[in-house]
């Protein structure tokens, strides 16, 4: 007589799930600490770094530039509809568009694009190396895989994603200005002078700091997913997909907390009258 398989008790499933979450966090924390440790201990060679910097930085320029340009242009189209309802406020369009691009949309959308383009590629590449035993081969040859594979990708993401964010910001600002002044006939002087009043160095630096954090998140999540890819084409595909989804969620969650933190910090430094 066959025995019916009873489902695991819900309490047991909950504890197993909780254990898996705690182990997962522990694993990724250990991975991050090892990456930071190797970054301090030994600098990767230029021969290892340059191809990765080229892949992450130079090859991302077109997609980030186009994304930034159209963010600015779409913002101008959407903002114009609202601002025309209050004609005296039309001059503030520049401040609204440029502020949104520099503070939030530039860093977040550039990071999202890079999570898709760079993060998925990293996870797929390292996942393939894992399932074809290339990572084991590195270890057998006396080379630490985290030092050789993760540190260069981490550095490339942390240092180049801010530069790409600057590009996205610039293209967004130019796209918004072009549509506003050339298509909607906003007075250029008003457009730029209001922007200058409302956007300061603080906004630019906060945006760049955020993009560094996003870069670090993308690198760690993507490399970790790649290192833990399961065997087969499905395993590599899943690693690439997971890396994008997890990076995207992490970017949005961390962005919220950083926005709260920097707003509070700003008010502490420069109290409102």
């Amino acid at each position, binding site marked *: 007589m066959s025995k019916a398989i009873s489902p695991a008790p819900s309490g047991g499933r909950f504890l197993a799930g909780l254990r898996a979450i705690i182990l997962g966090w522990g694993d990724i924390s250990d991975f991050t600490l090892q990456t930071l440790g190797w970054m301090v201990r030994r600098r990767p060679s230029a021969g290892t770094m340059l191809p990765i910097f080229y892949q992450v930085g130079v090859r991302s320029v077109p997609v980030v530039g186009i994304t930034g340009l159209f963010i600015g242009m779409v913002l101008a189209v959407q903002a114009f509809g609202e601002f025309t309802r209050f004609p005296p406020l039309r001059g503030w369009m520049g401040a609204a568009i440029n502020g949104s691009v520099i503070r939030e949309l530039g860093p977040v959308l550039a990071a999202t694009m890079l999570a898709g383009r760079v993060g998925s590629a990293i996870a797929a590449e390292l996942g*393939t190396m894992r399932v074809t035993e*290339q990572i084991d081969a590195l*270890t*057998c040859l*006396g080379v*630490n895989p985290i030092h050789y594979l993760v540190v260069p990708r981490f550095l490339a993401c942390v240092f180049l994603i801010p530069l790409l964010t600057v590009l996205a910001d610039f293209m967004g600002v130019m796209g918004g200005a072009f549509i506003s002044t050339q298509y909607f006939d906003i007075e250029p002087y008003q457009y730029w002078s209001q922007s200058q009043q409302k956007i300061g160095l603080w906004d630019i630096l906060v945006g760049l700091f955020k993009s560094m954090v996003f870069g670090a998140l993308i690198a760690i999540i993507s490399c970790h997913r790649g290192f833990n890819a399961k065997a087969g084409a499905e395993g590599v595909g899943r690693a690439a997909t997971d890396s994008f989804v997890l990076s995207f969620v992490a970017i949005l969650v961390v962005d919220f907390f950083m926005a709260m933190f920097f707003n509070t910090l700003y008010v502490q430094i420069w109290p409102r009258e």
Partner: protein
Amino acid sequence: MSTTSIPDLDRLMPPAPPLLRLDGVHMAFGKNEVLRDITLHIRKGETPVLIGESGCGETVMLKLLIGLLRPSAGQATFDGRVLTDLPEADLVRQRLRFGFVFQGAALFDSLTVFDNIAFPLREHTNKSNDEIEVLVWEQIHEVGLPGALLQRRPAELSGGQRKRVGLARALILKPEVVLYDEPTTGLDPIMSDVINELIRQTHQRHHVTSVVVSHDMKTVAKVAQRIVMLNPVSRIRPNEQQIIFDGDAAELLIASDPRVQQFVRGEAQSRVDLSQSSLSDY
């Protein structure tokens, strides 16, 4: 009066301590137990071949011997040092005394053949580019590959060429132990024989200790000095060891255990009932 020949003297000498040891090793991945209470000692210069059904843990044993995996219980020892007790830096130093030829060669896709073979020299020696070039050329000739392949990428090589490049990379630092994971899998019979011959020649030229995992009885016949057969954990009988055979090729052929004979002859009887399977439809 009897004279004592040199081989007899060798026999009279106390045996050298094992270079590689697995003592009471258990290995499990989650709930999947792969190795149970394995004890295996390998002496310097020996060439044991590990055989057994796919999935019964031979590759895991190789990875335990080089410290790529930590046993769930028991210990792996190399040259008198327990690998799990070594700090990372020492473990790396010990690993450099090994060469590992992976089943799929595990060549680095992003590097050329030359860079793959030169990789260990660049990472662990201070040799000039000229010296490295000479050593790489020597090594590529030793494994019988033409120099024209050096600038190709691994993706442009055939299976046999990849294995030989993998062997060249494994040998470039002159290791004391070479581990081969299914070196002839996926190769045609002639290329399999080429690889078997290379394993034999490498052993003779460099006096290395070679541990080979193989399911190919031709490899066993050609390179094995000692054959160790594993049984899958799921089929171990009560009070039985997982290693069901440990002896030389002559002993293998007359082994009384039907499971050993079944494996040697490659017979499916008792495992698949052909009269009941869909194969009988054909």
